């Protein structure tokens, strides 16, 4: 787990674990259930945000004192999440000195069959001169 980002308490609340990649996994359970037999949209959004923030933190790894704060998020729900593991991964489109633009994707059986996606803008605070800009 050394190479994986650490999760906030809310990540543990959702039952999320992190694998190499980083790849985020959220098992189905009562705490993430919306209407019966389906994953709650809020829990899905939470997973996507954890993936987005975790992936940015991973990209900032090694930079002492680097922090991120969410500015906004837009979540698209494409399919209902069924009673099985949900996976999420994120792509950092741009990592600047002040702003990170990230896209996160969630799926279940197949990575190409998305159940939800999110576009997130984050405020980044990092040591001077560490970014590209």
């Amino acid at each position: 787990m050394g190479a994986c980002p650490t999760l906030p308490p809310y990540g543990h609340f959702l039952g999320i674990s992190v694998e190499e990649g980083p790849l985020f996994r959220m098992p189905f359970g009562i705490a993430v259930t919306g209407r019966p037999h389906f994953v709650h949209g809020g829990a899905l959004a939470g997973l996507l945000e954890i993936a987005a923030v975790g992936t940015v933190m991973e990209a900032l790894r090694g930079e002492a004192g680097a922090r991120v704060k969410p500015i906004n998020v837009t979540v698209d729900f494409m399919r209902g999440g069924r009673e099985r593991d949900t996976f999420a991964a994120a792509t950092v489109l741009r990592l600047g000195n002040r702003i990170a633009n990230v896209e996160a994707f969630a799926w279940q059986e197949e990575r190409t069959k998305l159940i939800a996606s999110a576009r997130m803008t984050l405020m980044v605070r990092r040591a001077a001169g560490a970014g590209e800009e």
Partner: protein
Amino acid sequence: MTQSTPPGTPADFDPVLVTRMVSAFGHNGALGTRYVAHGADWIELALDYRAELVGDEETGVLASGPIIALMDMATSLATWIRRGRFEPQATLDLRVDYLRGAIPERTVIGHGECYRVTRRIAFVRGFAHDGDPDDPIAHVAGTFMMTGAA
């Protein structure tokens, strides 16, 4: 969110009862959302501060995820209040602007409003605050699609 709830006539839709029902189960139950107030096309729910919902351990600020879940539930209930009946629906999209972090220990209030409905789509907006509605912590906008036969 609650497709198991039996469809009702306008007079049957009781936001207090429905909030209590959906708050007793699953993710909403785990979050502990509860009813505060409602009007003709809006509802307010409360989410009490809990350490396990924190997104930043250093500051103790709530994660953004529980705010989304709260607003998803509030805006969803607002569509049924405006329509005067329950209808199965799915969230199409939800955008949240995080204006500032919620102050640790404070209860977050989520105000969801449905400002327009068509036959298949409901348009919603809302905001969340932690004590002062004039100093919100988040703004949201989104759409829902009716998934029942129409």
